[in-house]
């Protein structure tokens, strides 16, 4: 292991404490549960609250997207594990400004069940909730089963759109619709070059030889659709991009937003090498990249690899993307 940690069992509590100590003006924890973070100004009266959550080990996902113009709260699970329904409920209570709460999170069994349970509990407290699930990983299910896909880095677009919609005063149904609309027009595909080691397990989550790549990998190292010898960056860009563009039915003249995401150990330089090829490929197809994000937005601890996400744009979505947002980990001016 090459980890800068103390007792692995304390890992999550300690880094969340670090986040709270570093960003006291932006984030707070309701009560004494360090597994729930909310905006420092929560609840914002009259505004729809947005709660996300999921396993740890993906920073800046999920905790990093709590802030103005983004989510209002997050429930924090152990590394790669769902938060409990109790934690989701606490986040819900803390962000409810009277206009209801949107649950926006990735499509993972444990998360779905715990958010569902939390929704039942919130209902008993007369807090209205709606749920929208991130299902952007095109490698995880065929087009016809889009709703069953895993949620990966592309949820960023949904956070940004839903967060902006909530901030401008949309009601719960409209905020949920903005989130769902973003997800409906988002596709992601990733490639893994090395596995992750969970702090508590101390061994790799999967085996991948040096010089091999797993195409379509999930952000917990879930197997993809192809394993083979590592290819050039230009070929990888095409391998990841083409299925997404096809899946979203993106055609000449369309505007898109692109997210090139590093999974942890891949240098930023390599992400820009990918972006260069993405720019060329999309130009050739007659597309315009109206917005780009290049960096680490959803990681898998120290996995080497990257993913490409595409959001098909229209004026609405572009306006929501460009709306101001501010968290310790994300900023749109």
């Amino acid at each position, binding site marked *: 292991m090459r980890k800068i940690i103390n007792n692995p069992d304390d890992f999550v509590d300690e880094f969340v404490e670090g986040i709270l100590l570093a960003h006291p003006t932006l984030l707070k924890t309701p009560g004494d549960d360090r597994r729930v973070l909310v905006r420092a100004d929560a609840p914002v009266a009259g505004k729809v609250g947005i709660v996300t959550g999921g396993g740890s080990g993906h920073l800046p996902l999920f905790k990093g997207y709590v802030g103005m113009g983004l989510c209002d709260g997050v429930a924090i*699970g*152990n590394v*790669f*594990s*769902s*938060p*409990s*329904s*109790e934690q989701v409920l606490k986040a819900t209570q803390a962000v409810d400004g009277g206009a209801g709460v949107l649950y926006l999170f990735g499509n*993972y*069994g*444990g998360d779905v*069940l*715990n958010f*569902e*349970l939390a929704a039942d509990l919130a209902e008993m407290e007369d807090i209205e909730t709606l749920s929208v699930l991130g299902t952007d990983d095109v490698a*995880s*299910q065929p087009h016809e089963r889009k709703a*069953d896909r*895993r949620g990966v880095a592309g949820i960023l677009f949904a956070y940004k759109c839903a967060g902006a919609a909530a901030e401008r005063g949309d009601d719960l149904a409209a905020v949920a619709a903005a989130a769902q609309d973003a997800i409906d027009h988002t596709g992601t595909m990733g490639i893994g070059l090395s596995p992750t080691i*969970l702090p*508590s*397990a101390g061994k790799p*989550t*999967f085996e991948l030889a040096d010089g091999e790549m797993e195409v379509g990998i*999930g952000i*917990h*190292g*879930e*197997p993809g659709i192809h394993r083979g010898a590592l290819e050039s960056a230009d070929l990888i860009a095409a391998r990841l991009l083409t299925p997404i563009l096809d899946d979203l039915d993106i055609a000449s003249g369309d505007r898109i937003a692109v997210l090139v995401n590093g999974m942890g150990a891949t240098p930023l330089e390599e992400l820009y090498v990918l972006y260069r090829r993405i720019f060329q490929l999309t130009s050739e197809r007659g597309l315009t990249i109206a917005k780009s994000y290049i960096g680490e937005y959803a990681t898998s601890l120290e996995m080497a690899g990257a993913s490409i996400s595409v959001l098909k744009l229209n004026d609405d979505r572009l306006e929501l993307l460009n709306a101001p947002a501010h968290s310790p980990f994300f900023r749109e001016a």
Partner: protein
Amino acid sequence: MNTPELKTAIADGLARLSTHADELRDLDAALGDGDLGITVSSGSQAVIDALGQLDDSVSPSEVAKACAKAFANANPSTMAALVAGGLLAGSKVWSGKTTIDLTDSIDFAQAAADSISTRGKSQRGDKTILDALMPAIDALRTAPTTDTALSAAIAAAEKGVEDTKGVQSRRGRAAWLQERSIGLADPGATAFLRFLQEWKTR
């Protein structure tokens, strides 16, 4: 069984369940994310701890509820949430009872299975815990005597687990593997089988 007996039975039944943690982790690592070992070992420990805090005067239904809550929060994964939901559902059919017999256990298990199926949108054959749980319930129901019921349930669960090897996962993380999931036993079903076996030898 009355409450003190039930508490002891559960605690004893779970005492050695964590010895199967490695097997379950490896199965789940192959088909999912590898945390089922933790869910089962930290979940059992949490239940044992919760039972230790529980007064002997509470009802069997309260015992089941406490188990559900403890298991849900220990490592809140899919199995934890489904099993906890199942235990909660089971606790409802026990409400009002002060002792528990075989029929009550069958009713409990059936309510749990129904809850898992509803919440998980899953059925027998989807390669989940239900493929061990449902045959076991059938076996309990048709067992000629109370004495042989548990052994019959174990045998049925064993066959159920074996059968999951031949099919493709249709629920949970393992479903993403599609054809590649064929060949391995379902981790959740295996976990239930190990629980029954430990229950027998407690």
